[in-house]
Every structure is written in C-alpha cells, then in structure tokens.
C-alpha cells in the first residue's frame, strides 16, 4: 500500500514538473517596432574594416556570447534562463535585416534584451560588433 502511495506521489511530481517545463518553453520575441531613423541608419565603418575581427569580435564575446552563443545560434549558457528565444544570427531572416535594424535590436534593446549603449560607448565599435554578427551568416 505504501509503495502505491509513493508511486502516485512520484507520478504526480513528474506531471507537475513537465507542466511547469512546458509553461516555461521559450517563445519568439515577436516583431520589433523599430523607429524609422534606425531603419535607415548607416554604418560609420566600412565592410571589411580591420576592427571587425578584433574589436567587434572581442566586444561580442564579452557582451553577447553568454546568451547568443559563440556562433550566434542562441545557445549561450545564459540563454536557457530567458523567457524569450534569442534568435539565430546565422539565419537568413536575421541577416536580411538592414544594418540599422540590427543596430536598434542590439544596442537599444527591449524587455530581456538589455540596452548596451553604456557598455559599448563608441559608435564605430558598435558597428564593428554588427559587422562581426554579419560574419555568422551561413
């Protein structure tokens, strides 16, 4: 009799655990509402600038990698704790966006995506990070 109570309890806990997990599955963040001035924003550095693979890479690794992953796949160690999916920077959907749209999403942010304007203060350094993310295209 005692064993069947234990079994029911274990089964109940398992169902509860699965229910909570399902409730916590990450959801896509939904469309971004990006102001027009950002959509048409132009980079202050040129594609192929030397800073992309030095400064851009270093700043990406310092500020972005823990959630977005080393290759931008959204598999960083902190990503699992987020309610919102971090997206995939290698995907066509991400790469088809304008530089300005990526700038707004990366440095202005919303909700769980923090603002990074005070962490990366130099304009050209921000563009180096964006162009580094462009190198993640499949």
């Amino acid at each position: 009799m005692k064993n069947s109570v234990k079994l029911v309890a274990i089964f109940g806990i398992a169902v509860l655990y699965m229910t909570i997990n399902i409730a916590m599955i990450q959801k896509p963040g939904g469309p971004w509402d990006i102001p027009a001035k950002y959509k048409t924003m132009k980079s202050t550095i040129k594609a192929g600038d030397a800073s992309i693979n030095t400064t851009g890479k270093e700043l990406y690794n310092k500020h972005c990698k823990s959630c977005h992953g080393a290759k931008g796949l959204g598999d960083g160690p902190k990503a699992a704790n987020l309610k919102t999916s971090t997206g995939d920077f290698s995907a066509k959907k991400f790469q088809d966006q304008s530089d300005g749209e990526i700038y707004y999403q990366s440095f202005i942010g919303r909700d769980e995506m923090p603002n990074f304007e005070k962490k990366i203060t130099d304009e050209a350094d921000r563009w180096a990070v964006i162009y580094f993310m462009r190198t993640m295209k499949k």
Partner: protein
Amino acid sequence: MMKNYSFIRVIGAFALIVSMLSCYNGFAQEEEATEPVKERPARPAFESGLLFDAATTTIQSAKTLEMIIQHRFGTMDNGASDLFGIWAPSNIRLGMNFSILNNLMVGIGTTKYNKMQDIQIKYNILQQTRSNKIPVTVSVYEVIGIDGSADDKFGVNYKFTNRFNYHTQVIISRRFNDMFSLQLAPAFTHYNSIDSTLDHDRISISFAGRIKFSPQSSVIIGGDFPLQIQGISEHTKEYNDNATMMKPNICIGYEVSTSTHAFHLYLASAQGILPQENIMFNRNDFFDKGILIGLNITRLWSF
C-alpha cells in the same frame, strides 16, 4: 603623536599634476604638424576601475553604479594547517562606486581591518585617443580613510581628525594594444596619526599591467613600492637605516571580465585593501612566506 603634513601633501599632489599637464602639452605640440584626425577615445586600458586593491584609470560610463567585493585571506605560511590562509583571519571590503560623468567617479566603502571607512574620488584629466594624439590616460585619485577603531588607539590627546588618512595618486595608463596595457602611479600617503616609530608621510610608486590571452581572460600583475625618502622622514638617517623597511605589495593573478562583472583571483603580499594601508604598514614579503590569496568581484548597473 599627531602631526599635520597636509601642506606638504598638497604641494606634492600639485607638483605631480603639473608635471602630468606639462607632458600633455608636449604631446600636443608634437602632433600639431599632422593632419587633423577625428578623435575617438581609446578603449579602456583595464576592464574595471579596480585591479587587486589599486585603482586603474578606467571609469565606467556616466550613471553607472559599480558594487565591489574585495577579499583577502591570511598568509599561506602556515601551510595546510589553516588551508593556506583560507581559514586564517581575513580582510574584506565592500564598496560602491558611482560614475557621475564619463570621467568622474565617486565611491564609498567599508573595510574590516581597523573598521576603516573610505571615501574615494577619481577624475580623468586626460583620455588616451585612438589616433595617439593623447597617448596616455591620466587620472587623479584620492582615497580618504576614516579609522573606526576605539578612541584609545589614537593616544591621550584624542581628536576625531586623528582618524583620517589620505592617499593621493596620479595614475598614468596606456592601452598599447588589445592585448597589453600598463599603468604607472606615483602616490603620496599621509596619516594624521601614526605610531611614533613610523613616518606620517610616504611617497610610493605603483604599477599595474594586463596581458589579455582570450577575449575575456587576462593575466594581471601589480605592485606598490613604498619609498624611503629621508627628506620627508621625521626620523634620523641612522634610525631609518636600522628600522625594518615596509615591504612592497606585489600581486599577480587572473582576471575574467564579462559584460557586467570583473573577477580577480590572485596572489598578493599585503593584507590591507585600501592602498594607504598597504603602503604604510605592509610587512609581508612576497618572496619570503608572505603570500596570500585574494579575490575581487565587481558588478555594474547602468541607469
């Protein structure tokens, strides 16, 4: 017991600032002949405003709050019996720094040893630029400590001002490249009240360096060297020659920096945390059983 040397302190600090400004003018004149370049500030020489117990020229962006936890265990000379100092009495400081401007930071803190309370201010008078028109970042840094020990520590003629001590420093740093940064920092330290066997004033020179070996990890090294200068000593040369010299505080460790944190795990010799404590009182010899383990954690919040 108490002796006021604030005049000498002010003169010393002023002379250092003037010499720094002179260097700046020299640099500026050399560049006048070249084409005008849109100046961009260089990226910070160090990841955090703190390296071991020393200040760096790095000041976080305006309206950023930095919480600091600094911890130093006891010396390792007792070996495994106190787990290499980890079970020995330790020193801890909790601090908060706030960047009012991009080049001005103020801070407060409290330290276990001597129940020391401190107020700090750091101002960057020069910022290294990427064009090298300004090749170095120069900060002035002041730490005012207030000793919270019992009144009788300060002798029979106790006054509240006896509790005050000052550390005035000019910090000159250069980020040579993404991997290597170095800083040099002459300083003047003054204690309003100190044991009669010691001097109230001391000049010191500190250095710190960073070698980054991965995007987030660095080897860090630092040293504070108290100088015995007879001209500012209250004791005779004969006395000083026979007195035990204070030892340099040498630190070497590992730094991990993330978007909001900096972690330091290191070996050091001095157990003080405020720079004036290490320059005035450190008797631990890094090369003779005077090593201890230290760690720092910083956390940033932007507003």
